[in-house]
């Protein structure tokens, strides 16, 4: 009888492990090739992993809740059973474990979305004694011309699957030392390294060097320890890094939004015909984009390695979404080319996916600036954290009736709070104040948005 190991393939995007959410099969089940067998939550998204072979499930290697490193054996299939003949190709495959395993499928809602998930096959292990696997990519990619590392260090990096292009060297003039490689190897860590062959793709994101103090529990204290993992872990890392790198400051102001409220109320009614729910967010995005065109430093990034400011000529607007799993930031792509209705549609769709934990990696990539709408929950003002490598985040807060002095008397006005949080390396306080003024001008007189329309 033939037992086949089904492994968790490399899903790309720097993902090195995933939390097993639930098994879709149990011992004794007959499975077909390409049938999803397990649902897995990585730090980026939830995916369903299919089996490359058909067979009968003999053994499940992990329990629900376990953290599974890529390339480890998920389950064992008996391929001699009835199911085996359903997939004759299966027997030809086992010689090429990583290359043969199909890429995991996105959870249904994102099924067609993510080209990144086609990537793993091309990132298959190199140095495989079986020879070429048809893919022409090599991992780690050879060090670029500007990488300074001695030939011996380059070899060490290759043998330990460290991508030299992603390391900033600590040596003279940015030289990558042997120690840097050893350290990088340690930090990518994870079970993936144990195979020695699988490439844990180092994420392009920089990693902050921060102390990791222990928390010592007082004896007998009623406390519960839960591993930090998945999306929570990613949020923790991102926030820490953003705070570490970016000198933040936040400017707060309020707008009289009576006109905007009217506009939105009218728009809401007419959009309902299309089954689209219009919120304030698309209008805020429109005003934000128009204002960023006047102040391009808000739609930019700092390339610290190159010592350059990158001004972006496109607008992908991220919006913070509260989900049962934690904060997610889906992105409205090319928002500057979309109508208010289309933006509303995108927001509605992305927010739905976020709530269901079904956002594809691609849905959360490439934001150039972000809006956080914490006001819809509560609070007067907040000081948000910038979504690095962006340089600004706009906060929008609740709309309240307030008395406003018009020079002669108080009158009732609908007032909405806004904050703009900036990277002070690039944006000065006065610039932020001018930005806010220009932005509020649009919010208070939404007809001005007509002038900004493309």
């Amino acid at each position, binding site marked *: 009888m033939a037992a086949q190991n089904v492994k968790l393939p490399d899903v790309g995007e720097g993902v090195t492990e995933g939390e097993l959410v639930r098994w879709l099969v149990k011992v004794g089940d007959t499975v077909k090739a390409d049938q999803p067998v397990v649902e897995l939550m990585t730090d980026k998204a939830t995916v369903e992993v299919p089996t490359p072979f058909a067979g009968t499930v003999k053994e499940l290697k992990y329990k629900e809740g376990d953290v599974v490193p890529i390339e480890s054996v998920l389950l064992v299939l008996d391929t001699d059973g009835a199911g085996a003949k359903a997939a004759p190709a299966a027997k030809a495959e086992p010689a090429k474990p990583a290359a043969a395993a199909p890429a995991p499928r996105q959870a249904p809602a994102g099924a067609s979305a993510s080209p990144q998930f086609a990537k793993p096959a091309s990132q298959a292990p*190199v*140095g*495989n*004694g*079986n*020879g*070429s*696997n*048809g893919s*022409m*990519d*090599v991992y*780690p*990619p*050879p*060090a670029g*011309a500007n990488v*300074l*590392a*001695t*030939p011996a260090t*380059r*070899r060490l990096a*290759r*043998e330990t*699957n460290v991508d030299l292009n992603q390391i900033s060297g600590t040596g*003279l*003039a*940015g*030289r990558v030392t042997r120690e840097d490689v050893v350290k990088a190897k340690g930090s990518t860590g994870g079970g993936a390294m144990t195979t020695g*062959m699988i490439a844990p793709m180092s994420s392009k994101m920089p990693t902050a060097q921060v102390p990791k103090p222990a928390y010592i529990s007082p004896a007998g204290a009623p406390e519960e320890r839960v591993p930090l993992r998945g999306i929570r872990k990613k949020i923790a890392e991102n926030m820490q890094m953003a705070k570490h790198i970016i000198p933040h400051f936040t400017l707060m102001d309020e707008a009289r939004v009576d006109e905007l409220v009217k506009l939105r109320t009218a728009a809401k009614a007419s959009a309902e015909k299309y089954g689209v729910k219009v919120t304030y967010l698309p209008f805020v995005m429109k005003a934000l984009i128009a204002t960023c065109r006047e102040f391009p430093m808000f739609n930019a990034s700092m390339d610290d390695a190159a010592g350059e400011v990158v001004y972006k000529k496109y607008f992908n607007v991220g919006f913070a979404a509260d989900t049962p799993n934690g904060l997610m930031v889906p992105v409205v792509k090319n928002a500057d080319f979309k109508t208010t209705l289309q933006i509303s549609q995108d927001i509605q769709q992305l927010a739905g996916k976020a709530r269901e934990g079904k956002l594809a990696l691609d849905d959360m990539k490439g934001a150039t600036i972000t809006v956080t709408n914490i006001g819809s929950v509560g609070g007067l003002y907040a000081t948000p954290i910038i979504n690095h490598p962006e340089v600004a985040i706009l906060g929008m807060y609740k709309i309240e009736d307030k008395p406003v002095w018009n020079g002669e008397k108080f009158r009732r006005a609908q007032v909405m709070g806004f904050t703009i949080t900036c990277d002070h390396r690039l944006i000065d306080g006065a610039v932020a104040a001018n930005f806010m003024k220009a932005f509020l001008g649009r919010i208070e007189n939404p007809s001005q948005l007509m002038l900004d329309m493309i």
Partner: protein
Amino acid sequence: MAEKFDVCVVGSGPGGYVAAIRAAQLGKKTAIVEREALGGVCLNIGCIPSKAMITAAHFYHRMMHDAPTMGFAIPKEIDLDFKKLQAWKQSVCGKMSGGVAQLLKGNSVTVFMGEATFKSAKSVEVKGKDGTQQIEAANFIVATGSRPIEIPGFAIDEKDVLSSTGALALEEQVKRVVVIGGGYIGLEIGSYMAKFGSAVTVVEAAPALLNNVADPDCVQVVARRLKKNGVEVLLNAKAKGYKKSKDGLDVTFDIGGKEQTLKADKILLMVGRKPNSDQSGLKNIGLALDERGFIKVNAQRKTNVPGIYAIGDIAGQPMLAHKASHEGVMVAEIIAGHNRAYDAKTVPAVIFVDPEIASAGWMESECKAKGFNDLMIGKFPFGANGRAVSMMETDGFVKIIADAKTHIVLGVHIVGPEASNLISEAALAIEMGARVEDLALTIHPHPTLGETMMEAAEATLGHAIHIIQKPLGARPANGASKST
């Protein structure tokens, strides 16, 4: 009945035989196929025999020109027995090729002599003198090299129109030689033939000799020497064809829109080489080629066909033996399961003209193209080096190009005596990411040609000892190039 191997290397040049030895060292059952002579073009009709001839010619030339200055009484004519010279040259090749045979045997590599044809991605047929054999292997390394290019009007017959192969085998002095192609092969062979007394004319279609392959300052030194040695150079000249006449060959070429004719006894056609990808049945197995006929490979020299690797000339530029060897070792290790990829920063290149040119890293134009606009450049002439003067070989210089921001060495270009043997230090410096100070502060032994490297590094910093440079602390913005 096919014989089965883990690895079969096709072609035993400096890529192939090195790959076979390393594969065998790593415990793979290895075969190698060769259709002509072990060692390939390099050892038999390329690098090695041309170096033998160049050495002999240089020796001869120095006896005639330099020895009298040193006090030797040299007769006006020194007899040179071309047949004996050829026999000696052949013995050099024989030693090298025999050495390869010994090494292959010592490493238990099975050698098949004959023409290989791929029948599938897992099998080749070898037609040899003793019949036909089938070889099966899990991995094939294609290392079948390149051959000279022909141009319209000049078919290589090795009688009137010679390739490098025919030129290196000449058993007599040729009176009038026209070399078509002012690249490194044409100049190497043309130069030595001129030293043996031939009247040599080089016809080059480009506006410069060694166009885009060598540092222009270095080429200038060689161009001067060619002129001094009586080699005529025609630039922007396109060879059209030739006719036999009573007194030799009439070579016609187009220069500035006008057609001209040159008399020659032999024509050397040296306009470059092309990959042998149309041979060995490589098309049968669906290998993808690029537009120039090179087999497409990735950083691990894997082709699009699983289990087939390609190295050396057939796998792309630069077509240099040492690049092929480096790839050979790498591919053998990849097959044995090691994680390797081609990540060398530089393939040093040597041109055995007189004086020799050698380079590692980038030329100035390449540095600029890669975004290094602020360069420091230091040059040190061999004329200021004690060993060079005592050798009576003072033409040329070492030129170092470094990034002015970081002082990291980006390119080293040498023209002068033993440039070929000096360049390895530069290659190491570049691979190590050395700064010019690293070269300047390394003690170089005296009196040697190698001191020029140290001094050129000092020159980039504006304070070489043995040339007059501007006072310390007043380094000109673009390095010391002005003050040398």
